């Protein structure tokens, strides 16, 4: 996906707004293209932002990433933008003691009247219209959602066009258990039971975790899939993934010869 973003960043060097619009339009076009085949949408906003930050001559600090004035009505004032973590006036510890400092940095008090206060409860909308209302802490298990909230693109609901309702419900269940915390062995035990219960949809949950960028769940699912196929024969593996055998007989014989040491 990277080469598309670089091309976009080149166009954004000259004029900020025109470049931003072009990038946004290209991103939406790409997303529409991929959605029609139900494949993963490219992470347009984050990487384009980073690319343009490199190209912009007046980008401030070396590693700061400026935020686009987004198309939502509550977009930030770009000229006065400062990242939350450098401006102590915007960092207010909330009364609730259950919030960690990370979450309180996300939920900073509004600086001007134009700034959007991030919501404490978000609604996750799946591909088929199912909605799940979760706390901010739970939703922040996903790096994707966390970034969207930090950028102020989220008012109340987060559309997730790549994740279906049933799969999302299982992902949310996992996140909620993670947030509850507990001892290492208890969590491991619960993970095992979760994997056992969701055997049928393991692949879908893995893809969703990859899209939502939730590393613990993704690792768990990958390991579970690997364990499932670890003692299977070739035909069983093909059936499990629904793969058709596109090897010619000679090719297959050659590969089996090369890997003979496995079958001994």
């Amino acid at each position: 996906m990277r080469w598309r973003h670089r091309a976009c960043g080149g166009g954004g060097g000259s004029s900020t707004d025109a470049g931003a619009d072009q990038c946004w339009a290209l991103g939406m076009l790409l997303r529409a293209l991929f959605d029609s085949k139900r494949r993963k949408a490219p992470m347009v906003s984050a990487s384009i932002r980073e690319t343009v930050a490199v190209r912009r001559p007046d980008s401030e600090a070396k590693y700061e990433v400026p935020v686009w004035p987004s198309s939502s009505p509550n977009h930030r004032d770009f000229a006065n933008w400062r990242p939350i973590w450098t401006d102590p006036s915007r960092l207010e510890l909330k009364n609730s003691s259950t919030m960690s400092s990370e979450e309180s940095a996300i939920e900073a008090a509004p600086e001007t009247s134009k700034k959007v206060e991030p919501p404490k409860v978000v609604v996750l909308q799946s591909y088929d219209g199912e909605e799940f209302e979760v706390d901010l802490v739970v939703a922040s298990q996903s790096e994707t959602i966390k970034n969207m909230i930090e950028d102020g693109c989220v008012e109340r609901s987060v559309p997730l066009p790549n994740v279906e309702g049933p799969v999302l419900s299982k992902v949310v269940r996992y996140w909620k258990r993670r947030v509850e915390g507990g001892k290492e062995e208890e969590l491991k035990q619960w993970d095992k039971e979760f994997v056992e219960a969701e055997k049928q949809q393991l692949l879908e949950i893995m893809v969703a975790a990859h899209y939502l960028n939730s590393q613990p769940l993704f690792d768990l699912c990958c390991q579970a899939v690997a364990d499932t196929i670890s003692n299977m024969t070739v035909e069983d593996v093909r059936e499990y993934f629904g793969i058709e055998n596109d090897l010619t007989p000679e090719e297959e014989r050659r590969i089996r010869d090369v890997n003979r040491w496995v079958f001994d």
Partner: protein
Amino acid sequence: MEATVLPSEEEEEEERKNRFSINDDVDLLIEILERLDGRSLGVAACVCRLWSSVCRRDSVWEALCNRHVAGGGGGPGTRSVVAALGGYRRLYRLCVGPALDRLTGGPGRSGWASAATAAHLSLSLSLSLSLFSIDCYERLDGPQASLLFLCKPVNVP
């Protein structure tokens, strides 16, 4: 009769098209294959063209070897040494794989009996790796190939 048969066939076709296919996303496939053991990787190589090409890549075998060797494998220095020895795939096939089979009591048995044997296992693996490297060096052509030159006295001016 035909009217009732055809729609269900179409539905099946659509379901098959909509169903997620791992071959669409090679990154995910690599993530799964990196967590497999050696025997299953050999099986995976026979599944289809894409899988066999992915299994030929060294990164998958590198992940496998690093998982078993204590210390997690080291950095780019290790990679260049292993490349000189013929790649991670060859390393696993000739050294790590047979050593693991020998040390865990035969192919097909997985899991360690206790923590004590895990330490013993990693030490034995390190020893096997050292012997393998020495053997590769010995097989190199050239007058300096044999390590016996280390036994000769050194003239210090």
